[in-house]
């Protein structure tokens, strides 16, 4: 089945990012197609390559980038990102900044959309 995931909260601060990641991993293992992952609100902070968590902790932006390398379309909302200081220069690989039209297409084209946030 074609699934999309929408994430509203920043990494580490809220469990939403972890829940979404674990959900996506499980969906891929079951052979589902991920139509896209969209970051909105504070969710845009998930994909900064400047994050540097303790060595024994998960590296959240690296995880998303690795999913992007598998061909999943990972999109960060441009309006939400600009306001919060997430720009192309600080983005991890395999993630792109685009407009809310992308979210719209995901909501229409995905058979299911799951939203994680606060």
């Amino acid at each position, binding site marked *: 089945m074609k699934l999309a995931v929408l994430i509203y909260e920043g990494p580490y601060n809220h469990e939403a990012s972890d829940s979404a990641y674990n959900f996506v991993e499980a969906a891929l293992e079951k052979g589902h197609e991920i139509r896209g992952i969209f970051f*909105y*609100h504070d969710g845009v902070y998930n994909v900064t390559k400047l994050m540097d968590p303790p060595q024994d902790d998960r590296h959240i932006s690296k995880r998303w980038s690795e999913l992007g390398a598998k061909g999943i379309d990972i999109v960060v909302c441009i*309006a939400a990102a600009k306001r919060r200081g997430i720009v192309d220069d600080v983005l991890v690989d395999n993630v792109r900044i685009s*407009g*809310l039209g992308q*979210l719209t*297409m995901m909501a*229409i084209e*995905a058979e299911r*959309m799951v939203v994680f946030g606060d």
Partner: protein
Amino acid sequence: MSDDVKKIMFTVRKGPHGTIYVYEGLEVKLIMAAYDADISVVFMDDGVYALQQGQKTGDLGIKGFEATYGVLVDYEISKVYVDKKSMEDRGMTVEDLVVIGEDEDTEEDIRPTVVDADQIAAMMAEQHNILPF
């Protein structure tokens, strides 16, 4: 609208201004209205306070968005519902609600439609996808 146009619902459950969810959520609704989708918006819980008339955000130093609600119908977002019990619990009456447009023929103000929980539950069940904002 063709038969396979997808139904997308927005649920607004948070109050305005305390967080940006209502404001950024409004941006999504306006964008999505330009696409070929059958959009509805339901205000419930503290979300009903987003529809309160006369919000003055000047002393807070932030932008308001009441004016944008005023043109929802112009943006062809006319399926706007508000949960009756949420309003009653929160001391709101129909007169408190913002105007979301004007009837083309009668020139009368259009306000969100007050509905009850059963009606909302039935609408939810018909959706292709639901986005909470």
